[in-house]
């Protein structure tokens, strides 16, 4: 099993009406199979973060379920670091199974040194007299795929060199060598090519549905998609201490076809109720209605609030988001966590980067281009004020732009915070994507992002959770419209 991401309950996948997954059903199936023959049950990373069911307990719920299912080992994926090292340490200490990672050590280059997490490079198991080593290898790009602050003081070593070192150390001591990896399917294949002596790679990270085991040289590679939608099953035949045959399959997890493990179902229900209670918790108060209705046509106070939070969190000079990322309004009075989740339903995270003044102007031209249709690309901004006019053909055109009160300079560089959807070029924000294209100098040093292009990137923390924390810290908010976006000559307003 890999890339569970806390999807404990059955759910409808994007583009489908069919329910799939459900950890209680997967646990029931695994339990039945484990009664048939000696078995190892492995988790190939990204287990504890993703879905609210996991996030709102910072992954504690997932570890409780994994303990109940009796996992034999787990590799840390990048998203295991998303709640920070202190929380990860707590989760590892709660786990009744070994949590592995062979290719991490303390970084001698950073001044602040955390205590190394209680991760083990490998674990030895014995099944019916067959000795098995399970070596944990995670992505060496870790600082790029969680927030770099989450891995401050840690250095992630070469996947291949580390695997080779441990294969050499263990090859003559065991019958089978399994690499439990979180590096993605393609890199699993590359690893198998480079490092001889690995019998099996059980992988994750790329969410790949490997329906039949892949074979590279003598190494078998498997991966079981994502979100507990399938259970990966690999039957291994060992003769005279050597692997002589394998048969693999993925079994669909569908509530309609499987029973539930009662104990696991009970844990799922317990934490689901906690999630419901947390979402009903009052996180603060708004002294005014938060306008999520007009975000596709006008500056609104809700848009300003979210854009301000993005600017503040990322440390950028400005922030630009799409009005379409805000879906509903919130009435004056108490704000519940659920109100924010409903208003900001997307799993967006914050990215910030550098743009020229010219690129900002062109970005805003795109942003207002579908105002008449009420397009979701209409901007909400922070640190910027701008005006637009309607040209003779009745299309909107940007007029004046000011940043921190000063006129925008076309050739000057400015930092801009936004969400990942726009950063990928969504809603026609191609200049954001092109800014990323020119950010070859993106690097991470001592927990901070260095480089002219990207200045902030936190794929492990949803924007809506940051908004909730902001409101919680302020207790009472009253955001207002401030003339950040001004329409100067709409034809119908003459």
């Amino acid at each position, binding site marked *: 099993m890999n*890339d569970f*991401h806390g999807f404990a309950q059955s759910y409808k996948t*994007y*583009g*489908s009406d069919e329910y799939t997954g459900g950890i209680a059903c997967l646990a029931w199936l695994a339990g039945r199979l484990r009664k048939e023959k000696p078995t190892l049950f492995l988790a190939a990373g990204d287990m504890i973060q*993703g879905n609210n069911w996991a996030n709102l307990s910072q992954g504690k719920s997932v570890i409780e379920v994994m303990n109940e299912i009796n996992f034999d080992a787990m590799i840390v994926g990048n998203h295991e670091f998303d709640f920070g090292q202190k929380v990860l340490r707590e989760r590892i200490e709660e786990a009744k199974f070994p949590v592995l990672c062979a290719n991490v050590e303390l970084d001698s280059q950073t001044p602040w040194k955390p205590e190394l997490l209680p991760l083990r490079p490998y674990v030895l198991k014995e099944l019916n007299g067959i000795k098995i080593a399970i070596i944990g290898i995670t*992505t060496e*790009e870790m600082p*790029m*795929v*969680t927030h770099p602050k989450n891995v401050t003081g840690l250095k992630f070593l070469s996947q291949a060199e580390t695997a080779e070192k441990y294969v050499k150390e263990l090859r003559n001591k065991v019958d089978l060598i399994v690499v439990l990896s979180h590096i*993605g*399917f*393609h*890199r699993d294949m590359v690893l198998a090519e480079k490092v001889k002596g690995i019998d099996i790679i059980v992988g994750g*990270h*790329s*969410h*790949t*549905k*490997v*329906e039949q085991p*892949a074979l590279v040289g003598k190494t078998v590679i498997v991966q079981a*998609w*994502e*979100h507990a939608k399938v259970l990966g099953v690999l039957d291994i035949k060992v003769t005279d201490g050597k692997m002589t045959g394998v048969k693999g399959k993925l079994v669909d997890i569908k509530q309609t076809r499987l029973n539930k493990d009662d104990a696991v179902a009970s844990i799922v229900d317990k934490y689901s109720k906690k999630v419901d209670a947390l979402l009903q918790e009052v996180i603060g108060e708004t002294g005014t209605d938060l306008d999520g209705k007009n975000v596709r046509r006008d500056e609104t106070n809700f848009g300003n609030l979210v854009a301000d939070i993005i600017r503040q969190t990322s440390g950028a000079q400005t922030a630009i988001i799409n009005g379409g990322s805000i879906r509903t309004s919130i009435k004056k009075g108490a704000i519940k966590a659920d109100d924010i989740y409903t208003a900001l339903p997307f799993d967006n995270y914050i*990215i910030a980067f550098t743009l020229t003044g010219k690129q900002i102007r062109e970005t805003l031209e795109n942003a207002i281009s579908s105002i008449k249709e009420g397009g979701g690309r209409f901007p909400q901004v922070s640190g910027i004020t701008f005006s637009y006019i309607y040209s003779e053909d009745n299309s909107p055109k940007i007029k004046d732009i000011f940043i921190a009160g000063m006129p925008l300079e076309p050739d000057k560089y400015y930092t801009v915070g936004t969400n*990942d*959807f726009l*950063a*990928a*070029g*969504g809603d026609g924000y191609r200049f954001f*994507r*092109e800014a*990323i*294209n020119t*950010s070859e100098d*993106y690097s991470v040093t001592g927990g901070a992002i260095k480089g002219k292009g*990207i200045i902030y*990137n936190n*794929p492990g923390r949803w924007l809506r959770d940051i908004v909730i924390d902001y409101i919680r810290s302020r207790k009472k908010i009253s955001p207002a419209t401030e003339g950040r976006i001004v329409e100067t000559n709409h034809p119908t307003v003459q």
Partner: protein
Amino acid sequence: MKVFVNNKEVDIIAGMTVRHALIAADFLKDISSGKKVFDEWGNEIGLDGTVEEGLNIHVR
């Protein structure tokens, strides 16, 4: 980081996923209409899966 979606080249940053590649290439709407995403070896991949430099993704 360059990746390809149905042979269309797009740039995304490290840490971004299949979903971002589809947004960049304007293919995300195809998934809501029932199409699936496959890697260059023919395996179906999830939208939250990682991508790496040069990967060729197919939507069909």
